[in-house]
């Protein structure tokens, strides 16, 4: 499976979690792609933490406005009904329980649902940006990541990298499986098309609850 295929599976599956009227924050990387698969006719509000609700598609060439950007500083457009605000309001939305769902990338998720996604000591220290607030405050935390990196599982027994939050995530979607967390326990709830439960478990270090019947992801 190519990397592109994996990312598409993950983004398409997470788009199925969107509901009408939701306020949703998409992180950079795979999470951003979720916006490409919003079901037709479904109104979802996407927040960009630099101060925008109603982020629209990338403008056509020559139409970019330097003062209307996403959290990476790249030009975006705004949908009808969009609104802008300062960073205190932006994080009030995030921390105050107003954000229905956040979709973030991950480096590790462990069997209690803890996420590490902001640094690899000594190697990569980009800073946490808004990740810690998002995981702390969003009503629902969804992790979009590949199941393994360089042949090593990212669904581990216990995170070895610094945690983003002690609040466990709700859902992890990889190119192999969907895992949901409740009460600090992970359950394998879906497998990707053509992937067996055994293949998922072989690529997973964490102990997961496995129901008798695990349905296939509907993409």
């Amino acid at each position, binding site marked *: 499976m190519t990397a592109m295929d994996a990312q598409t599976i993950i983004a398409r599956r997470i788009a199925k979690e969107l509901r009408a009227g939701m306020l949703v924050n998409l992180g950079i990387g795979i999470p951003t792609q979720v916006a490409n698969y919003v079901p037709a006719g479904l109104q979802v509000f996407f927040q960009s933490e*630099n101060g925008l609700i109603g982020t629209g598609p990338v403008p056509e060439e020559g139409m970019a406005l330097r003062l209307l950007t996403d*959290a990476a500083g790249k030009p975006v457009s705004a949908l009808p009904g969009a609104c802008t605000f*300062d960073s205190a309001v932006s994080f009030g939305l995030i*921390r105050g329980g107003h954000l229905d769902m956040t979709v973030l990338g991950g480096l590790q998720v462990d069997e209690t649902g803890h996420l590490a996604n902001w640094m690899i000591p000594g190697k990569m220290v*980009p*800073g946490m940006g*808004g990740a*810690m607030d998002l995981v702390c405050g969003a009503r629902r935390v969804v992790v979009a990541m590949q199941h393994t990196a360089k042949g090593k599982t990212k669904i581990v027994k216990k995170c070895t990298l610094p945690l*983003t939050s*002690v609040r466990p995530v709700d859902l992890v979607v990889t190119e192999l499986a969907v895992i949901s967390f409740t009460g600090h326990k992970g359950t394998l709830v879906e497998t990707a098309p053509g992937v067996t439960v055994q293949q998922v478990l072989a690529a997973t270090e964490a102990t997961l609850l496995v129901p008798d019947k695990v349905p296939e992801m509907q993409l």
Partner: protein
Amino acid sequence: MQTITLDKAVAMIPNGASLMIGGFMGVGTPERLMDELVRQGRRDLTVIANDNAMPGIGIGKLVSAGLVRKTITSHIGLNPETQKKMIAGSMEVELVPQGTLIERIRAAGYGLGGILTPTGVGTVVEEGKRKIEVDGSEYLLEKPLHADFALVQAFLCDYLGNLTYVLTARNFNPVIAMAAATLIVDAEHIVPVGLIPPDQVVTPAPVVDYVIAHG
């Protein structure tokens, strides 16, 4: 409010000053002030801002010119020079969750003794901080963050100093405007009094110290 030339505004800033600088990945950063700080070669600055932008843009220009001794920020991921200087030990980097950073600045500007946030509880962020329980939930006490100067990019500024901001160039600007001893504003347009409807003023004129004159 006083108008001031760009070079005189930067001449007020001494070496070793702490600066809050508006902007998010360079969007909403007073770019002319960045260029003038580089031209005048101000040194040993402490820069408090959302991020370090990237080389050649906004705060990235100060980093590349070696003017920054310390930065208090939430993200340096798109500025490899800040990361290199941090690893080499030539620049101190204090990483703060974005929502905590803006609230620490707000606390300073609004006269609060700090804020209580759940963000960071149980992570490396809580090291050295007081944990306070309120109604059964744990919070970190995050102290106010002050600065010597706030460098703000506004959209409109009227002759009195009332300010508006635009789209995603707003970000940290109206919050840092309240939190520094001296506020220096660069506005895209300076307009007659009355042109900004009262409801649209975001930063009230009395908090503005200096506005950089145009042309």
